[in-house]
């Protein structure tokens, strides 16, 4: 494959990561959690704060200006985005491009989360003209992000068969992964029967299909691969990427072609996946997949979106432990948002880095070389171990 089509391949890396404990911190602020994560990342990389000359944040955590004031840092590249899981990969991509083009040498992506201390973005967005970002329509009681995935999951089951029972093994496998992760919030193993006994939140979603809202802080340090080589643990390289696909055919929390809101109905077959072309690998080379798993069905969509299985096959693909650590294609080895916890999803990228550095102990994917962040909206990054 034409990996040389991507001049950035392997040129940018994540050089350090920080992740606080994930739990409830009633006596702390998002700022203190963000600062703690920042210090953890600096220590992880063996860098000083003055090595950092760029900062990126998402909203509803710590805003960039107060964070920089708090840590006494002036940077030459700052950016703040809007807070949604679909803007995680784009923010890393944006940071990578800024570093690659010399606008910064080291960009810290920082977030401190205090549960719903600032409300949720959707509290505002559900009142937009048209619908909310997940199809919310408050006058009809269509509220909360879970609505978007519940309405799309029903479409998926109508098109391909199956139902709630097909989501059970996703929750079970990710809980298994979390049971091997000392920093995970939900670690007690669960069974398919536990999942099926879990109360409905929005049918066809049960409580165990939904992520949790906890407190925590996370930080990633993005540098050129050359500079990252000199840091304490080396860097984890960005090998290929593709952006968030957006528009009426790309409803949030839905797979392409399901016919949610004004989407067309068709069978999606992946082709021309730029992320693999850029990385010079294909699906069979991927050692582990990471999905923004706010709700279990999106893992089905992501696996089909990137061709790990065919249309409608994901509900069988995820069974028999295939996506658990030790399985053929481990997904969200930390336990993901479903079981590890939720720092707007940044913790998912901390796990990718630790896996590719071989630091994950009982949940380590043996000899992990390539881990792909893959989302149902097409946003993706292939990360690789620094040679």
């Amino acid at each position, binding site marked *: 494959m034409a990996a040389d089509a991507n001049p950035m391949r392997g040129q940018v890396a994540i050089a350090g990561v920080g992740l606080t404990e994930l739990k409830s911190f009633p006596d702390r602020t998002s700022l203190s959690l963000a600062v703690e994560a920042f210090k953890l990342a600096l220590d992880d990389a063996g860098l000083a704060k003055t090595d950092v000359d760029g900062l990126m944040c998402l909203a509803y955590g710590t805003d960039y200006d107060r964070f920089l004031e708090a840590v006494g840092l002036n940077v030459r590249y700052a950016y703040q985005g809007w807070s949604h899981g679909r803007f995680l990969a784009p923010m890393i991509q944006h940071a990578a491009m800024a570093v690659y083009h010399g606008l910064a040498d080291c960009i810290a992506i920082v977030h401190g989360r205090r549960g719903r201390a600032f409300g949720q973005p959707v509290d*505002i967005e559900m*009142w*937009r*003209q*048209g*619908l909310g970002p997940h*199809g919310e*329509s*408050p*006058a*009809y*009681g*269509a*509220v*909360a992000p879970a*609505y978007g995935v*519940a*309405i*799309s999951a*029903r*479409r998926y089951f*109508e098109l391909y068969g199956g139902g709630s029972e097909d989501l059970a093994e996703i929750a079970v496998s990710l809980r298994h992964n979390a049971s091997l992760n000392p920093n995970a919030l939900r670690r007690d193993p669960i069974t398919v029967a536990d999942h099926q006994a879990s*109360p*409905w*939140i*929005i*049918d*066809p*979603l049960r409580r165990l299909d939904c992520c949790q809202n906890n407190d925590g802080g996370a930080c990633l340090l993005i540098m050129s691969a050359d500079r990252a080589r000199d840091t304490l643990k080396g860097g984890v390289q960005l090998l290929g990427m593709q952006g968030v696909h957006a528009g*009426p055919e790309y409803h949030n929390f839905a797979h392409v072609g399901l*016919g*949610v*809101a*004004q989407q067309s109905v068709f069978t999606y077959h992946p082709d021309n996946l730029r992320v693999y072309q850029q990385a010079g690998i294909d699906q069979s080379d991927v050692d582990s997949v990471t999905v923004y798993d706010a709700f279990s069905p999106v893992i089905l969509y992501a696996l089909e979106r990137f061709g790990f299985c065919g249309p409608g096959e994901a509900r069988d693909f995820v069974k028999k432990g295939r996506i658990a650590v030790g399985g053929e294609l481990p997904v969200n080895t930390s336990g993901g948002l479903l079981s590890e916890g939720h720092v707007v999803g940044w913790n998912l990228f901390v796990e990718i880095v630790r896996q590719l550095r071989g630091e994950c102990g009982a949940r380590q994917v043996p000899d992990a070389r390539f881990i792909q962040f893959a989302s149902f909206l097409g946003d993706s990054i292939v990360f690789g171990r620094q040679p």
Partner: protein
Amino acid sequence: MTTPVQQDATGRYLPVMHPEEQPYWDAARRHELVLPKCDSCGKVYYPVGPVCPNCLSSHFSWAPMSGLGTVSSFVVYHKPWAPWLKPRVPYVVAQVELAEGPRLTTNLLDIAPGDVRAGMAVQVAYETLTEEVTLVQFRPV
């Protein structure tokens, strides 16, 4: 930024009626379902917007719909996210695909949540909330 609107007596969320959508809500009060139909390419489109999303023409007419459609997808809320929803759970939110094409997000009236099926035929219904606000809803044919 849009400000949430709630009914005084119940706390129920009311729709924010954006200026471009006013004819849609006025029609609902008359128990009529109308959507914008492009004068240039003939597309019926929803959500209501400033131009036809197909050809970008800003010339359209408010066309009466047949009021007939099918349930393309539905969910059943068991968790009440707001106080006014507590007495309503379990309640259904459905996407109804109109015979004319667009899908509307609505509730289903006069049917128990357990009896709702994807693909079922429905027809438009109207739920009066206040003097100003009548919601477009659907019920089984």
